């Protein structure tokens, strides 16, 4: 296979270098990355600049905005809340989602397709459409405005997401192993804890990290259910941005950079375990 594929690949690479269509493709990719670099770069530069009005770069540099953002926005508390919410959501959605994913992946039973659709819907609907009624219900029972409400709201897309991410991992485990364990007298919970859980560790890690990234980045649901002491970083960032004018632009930028760094750290960790395309789809790359 590789022996045949190599010349074909060489030929394709040669064609890319030659054709005008390739220039267009690479041109638009470069343009996109330039825009992206400009967007991120201007935030980073602004957060280190003392004053930056009508020039290419700020007149002088400082790190005071970080200190200011840290104190003014009580960032430590916000970060602690963000981490707590994210870990709780990850923990609960894995505990609840993995067993369900197992049954959905392995078993055929009446109503399976309906159930699958039910688990797909929260991912397909815009968060605002179910977020507003959900927040109304949570306020009715006095759960919203606290961390409990934020965690509950974030579980809605996270549990289905765990189920969808785990399904291919579970399908890879040979059912013969479970049957062998049963033959040796293991009970269901023993099969789960001693046989399946160790085999599913990579999948569980991938699903947890994906849920973590999504929860830290989730704006709408947290925004609708959070109270003053249960804001996550992204919601706090939104509030400082929409109240711009009373805040120095640079300290908002500093906060945005802190948020970016947190996301980048998560992303780097995530990419050690999952393929980039898996962050959006669950199709596997061709190993070739």
């Amino acid at each position, binding site marked *: 296979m590789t022996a045949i594929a190599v010349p074909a690949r060489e030929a394709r690479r040669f064609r890319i270098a030659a054709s005008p269509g390739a220039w267009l493709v690479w041109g638009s990719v470069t343009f996109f990355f330039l825009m992206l670099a400009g967007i991120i770069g201007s*935030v980073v530069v602004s957060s280190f600049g003392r004053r930056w009005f009508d020039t290419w770069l700020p007149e002088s540099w400082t790190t005071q905005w970080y200190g200011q953002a840290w104190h003014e926005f009580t960032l430590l508390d916000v970060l602690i809340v963000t981490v707590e919410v994210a870990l709780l959501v990850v923990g609960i959605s894995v*505990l609840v989602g993995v067993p369900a994913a197992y049954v959905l992946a392995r078993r055929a039973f009446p109503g399976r397709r309906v159930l699958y659709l039910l688990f797909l819907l929260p991912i397909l609907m815009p968060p605002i459409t179910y977020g507003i009624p959900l927040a109304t219900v949570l306020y009715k029972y006095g759960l919203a405005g606290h961390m409990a409400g934020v965690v509950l709201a974030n579980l809605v897309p996270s549990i289905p997401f765990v189920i969808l991410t785990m399904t291919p991992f579970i399908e890879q485990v040979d059912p013969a192993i479970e049957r062998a364990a049963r033959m040796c007298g293991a009970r269901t919970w023993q099969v789960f804890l001693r046989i399946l859980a160790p085999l599913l560790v990579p999948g569980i890690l991938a699903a947890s990290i994906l849920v973590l990234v999504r929860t830290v980045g989730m704006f709408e649901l947290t925004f609708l259910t959070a109270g003053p002491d249960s804001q996550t970083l992204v919601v706090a960032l939104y509030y400082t941005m929409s109240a711009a004018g009373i805040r120095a632009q640079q300290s908002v930028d500093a906060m945005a950079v802190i948020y970016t760094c947190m996301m980048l750290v998560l992303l780097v960790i995530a990419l050690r375990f999952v393929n980039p395309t898996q962050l959006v789809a669950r199709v596997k790359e061709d190993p070739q």
Partner: protein
Amino acid sequence: MTSLRHRLADRGIDRQLLLLIPASLCVLILFVYPFAYGFGLSFQPSHGGVLGAYKEFFTDAYQRDTIWTTLKLSLPAAFLNVAASVPIAYRLRGRFRGKRLMTTLLVIPITLGTVLTAEGLLNFLGPTGWLNRTLMSAGIIDAPVRLTNNYWGVFFSLVITGFPFAFLLILSYLSGIDPTLERAAATLGAGWWPRFHRVTLPLLAPGLATTFCLTFVLAFSVFPSAILVGDPAGTTRVISIAAYHAAYESYDYSLASAIAVVMGVVELAVVAAVLGVRSLFYTGSTGGKG
């Protein structure tokens, strides 16, 4: 008793299905029940009868037009994202050096989220931002182009976050198509265009439809960027802003629920239309693992 259990087990019902209960309960309590509650609430407005909230929404042009505003933003954005992704992903589907780096870089805007993108866009595309500065010193424009706090700001933010998402999805669908099919077409003398639109494109159609739907859903629920880089009182007053205002500024939960229901219906209608068009095309195996 035993026989009943055996009969049920024959149909695939046994105690293992109990494992489904926690997840189903969560979705039922946290998704289905609030949705049904909101649906019921939308028919109990403080005035105007059963359909009062819907009447209020559809007779007030300021509210009704949010549907068009949202569609005018999300449909072109989703279309552009998918249309730009196809040729690029088609070119880049092979293996080349730096592919993993490129896909990794593309994930960044997805994780940044809309709020940070909005902040960056305000800085970068603003009147004194780098883009206007570059264009002005290159002599392309005389006065700064207004790209933020209007339609284009939101549109750019939808492209920045939506394009990588669409690209990575389409790339994964494309790599799920068996490359030997195209090689066979090439052996039979097909040029690159017939190869693309007679072989690859039909196989890609289901993936395209799914990608379009997911990108559209993402763009349709635009909320923070419409407020931050848009013109939330005018040209980018999208339907989610209308719903939010109804719920948290005028505390009219009935109207807010009605708007949420309208939003869901419009979105599902577009998704259904796209999937309907898709069913006119080839459905079946893509030859690969896809």
